[in-house]
């Protein structure tokens, strides 16, 4: 299973769209850097076709830096330690940028 790492907004690159088309059941998504903006409620529709088995995370440090709150509830906020733990738990990490 794969951890998909996305660091761009939905507008600045097609990284998010491409990653969503490449997930398998049981994979996870982690939004970092500018990627965290994708967890704004206005972008929720992008994630509606994800299999329910795909867990969604965002890097809290990046969301705090950008003043983001009231984000999409489907995303769990984690710190860098959580990021490392996810990298261990999933078999590999694929970066989309």
């Amino acid at each position, binding site marked *: 299973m794969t951890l998909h790492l996305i*660091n*761009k*907004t939905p*507008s*600045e690159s097609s990284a998010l769209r491409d990653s969503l088309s490449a997930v398998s059941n049981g994979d996870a998504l982690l939004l970092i*850097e*500018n990627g965290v*903006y994708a967890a*704004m*409620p*206005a*972008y929720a529709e992008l994630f509606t076709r994800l299999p329910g088995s795909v867990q969604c995370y965002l890097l809290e*440090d*990046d969301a*705090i*830096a*950008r*003043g*983001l*709150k009231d984000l999409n509830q489907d995303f769990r906020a984690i710190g860098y330690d959580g990021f490392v733990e996810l990298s261990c738990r999933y078999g590999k990490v694929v970066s989309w940028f």
Partner: protein
Amino acid sequence: MSDTKKSFLIINRKAPYGSSAARDALDVALTISVFEQPLSLLFMDDAVLQLLPAHNAAAIGQKNLSANLSMLEMYDIDQLYVCQRALEQRGIRPDDIELNIILLDQSGIAALIKKQDQVLSF
């Protein structure tokens, strides 16, 4: 040179912190105002994310952009134009923004660009 005036427009299109674009643009804006040239700023696309309140960029080892944005008002740069569609696409209400902004639709943006002497993009 003091006799010459040119109107400048800075077009911002990038989100803050992920790249240096937002800060680069603000540094240019402050410099233009030091030169006392007519200046407008336009926020399109992801740049409207620069306008969200309560940044805390120390969390990622950077400096807050908000401080520089507030300086714009101190420097009498109060022509902050914002693309309405960019706000809507991101679910940001104009009330969420704590700066004095002027909302523009597509034809407003075209008209704003049309009347400038120089346009710098970031």
